[in-house]
């Protein structure tokens, strides 16, 4: 029991530390990649090629002056970023970084827990994360914030659906809801080959859930002047910021797990493959941000309900037919 607990605690700490590091450095990746795409350098001053920039930013974020607007709903205003970051962090629990290793005679699995209902957990908790965005927008007592919060909630509700549909077809192929199970099932053939349409839908919906360009309605700095986090500053803003990037990391990890075969890959050890795939997806997130314009709010809704939802349903239908015909 003690052994089990101590392994668990060490594992939790390691996962937390690694994940926070990745979150911090995905901001660096974002700025660096955007910079180079835009013919700039990105951060260069703090550390070698700005490598210490995330840390400097973090320190700055935590020590800046806190501002709470007068007509803000103070408890909710403080609660919102906490919800955001808490949801993002609790998603880290079920990411399968790798299979298992044996250290000093103990067989240690490289994931914190393998839930029976892993995928449902991801879907459920990620909706909770959107509460942070909604409430943050509403509680700041700013009209731009309210509009951002409204957009966020509408968008999250719409895209959650198509995302779930994309996941369902993966589950149909895999026959399990457990993330580890899904990865193990992909040992031979990755799901992206079996489910290209679902992969596409999942990526699009994931970007929408992440509030990233081209779906960054809730922030839309050009129209809503940063939307839901317009009144946030210092620590609370830093929490939102971290939550955003933590979500990005979780999204990349989810795509890796569901479609890209998780830790599977030749030659290199499992976790390395996992991180390669994850970082490639993080790079993709930044890359597409630098390229695409922003959708309009109603067009986002239209895309979600009129294109992705039918496509998801069709995909499930096709998958079902395929499974029936070939009797899998």
């Amino acid at each position, binding site marked *: 029991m003690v052994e089990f607990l101590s392994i668990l605690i060490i594992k939790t700490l390691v996962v937390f530390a690694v994940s926070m590091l990745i979150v911090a450095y995905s901001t660096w990746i974002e700025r660096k*990649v955007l910079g*180079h*795409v*835009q*013919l700039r*350098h990105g951060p260069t001053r703090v550390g070698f090629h700005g490598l210490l920039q995330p840390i400097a930013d973090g320190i700055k974020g935590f020590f800046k002056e806190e501002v709470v607007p007068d007509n803000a709903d103070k408890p909710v205003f403080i609660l919102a970023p906490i919800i955001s970051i808490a949801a993002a962090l609790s998603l880290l629990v079920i990411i399968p970084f790798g299979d298992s290793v044996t250290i000093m005679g103990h067989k240690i699995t490289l994931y914190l827990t393998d839930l029976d209902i892993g995928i449902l957990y991801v879907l459920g908790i990620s909706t909770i994360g959107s509460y942070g965005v909604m409430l943050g927008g509403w509680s700041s007592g700013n009209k731009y914030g309210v509009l951002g919060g409204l957009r966020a909630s509408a968008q999250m509700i719409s895209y959650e659906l198509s995302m779930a549909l994309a996941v369902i077809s993966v589950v149909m192929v895999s026959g399990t809801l457990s993330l580890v199970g899904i990865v193990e099932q992909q040992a031979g053939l990755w799901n992206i080959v079996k489910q290209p349409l679902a992969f596409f839908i999942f990526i699009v919906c994931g970007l929408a859930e992440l509030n990233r360009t081209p779906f960054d309605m809730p922030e839309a700095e050009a129209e809503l002047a940063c939307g839901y986090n317009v009144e946030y500053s210092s620590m609370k803003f830093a929490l939102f910021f971290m939550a955003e990037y933590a979500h990005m990391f979780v999204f990349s990890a989810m795509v890796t797990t569901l479609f890209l075969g998780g830790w599977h890959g030749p030659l290199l050890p499992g976790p390395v493959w996992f991180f390669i795939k994850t970082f490639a997806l993080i790079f993709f997130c930044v*890359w597409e941000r*630098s*390229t695409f314009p922003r959708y309009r709010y109603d067009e986002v809704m239209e895309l979600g309900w009129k294109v992705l939802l039918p496509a998801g349903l069709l995909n499930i239908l096709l998958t079902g037919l395929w499974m029936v015909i070939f009797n899998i």
Partner: protein
Amino acid sequence: MDKPDYVINVSSRRPEKGKYLLPLFKGLKYTLQNFFTKPITIQYPQERREVRDRWRGLHRLKVDDQGKLKCVACGLCAKICPPQAITIVPYEEEGQTRYPKEFIIDEIRCIFCGFCQEACPKDAIELTKVYDYVDYHREDFIFDIEKLKHPERFVFTGK
């Protein structure tokens, strides 16, 4: 309305239908290409770009071979200056050439149009290549003769 022959209709270029995904990937490819090019920005103040010869920066009052100001305090520059940033107090001694007792340029008022340089009949004032003078107080931007003689002292070094 009949259109003249020099008109070209750009609306023929409008892609009304189709072309959904391919242009997106083309755009991605273009940005990726640029990702691998060298950044064009300059790491100021470590790197500084060389400005062209006609650059209109801080003013310099030129001196002649004997180290005397070329300026004769005729007041043309003060007259032409659109924001009226130049103040000249002339000083005349018996039998001597006219020279300015005070020559003050308010570098905050100044818009660096270069009219003073153009107006000067003695080629006594010029705009140098110093473009990044910074200071803390407004008073520091009011340049007298001493400061105007050596504007290169005010190049920003990053400290």
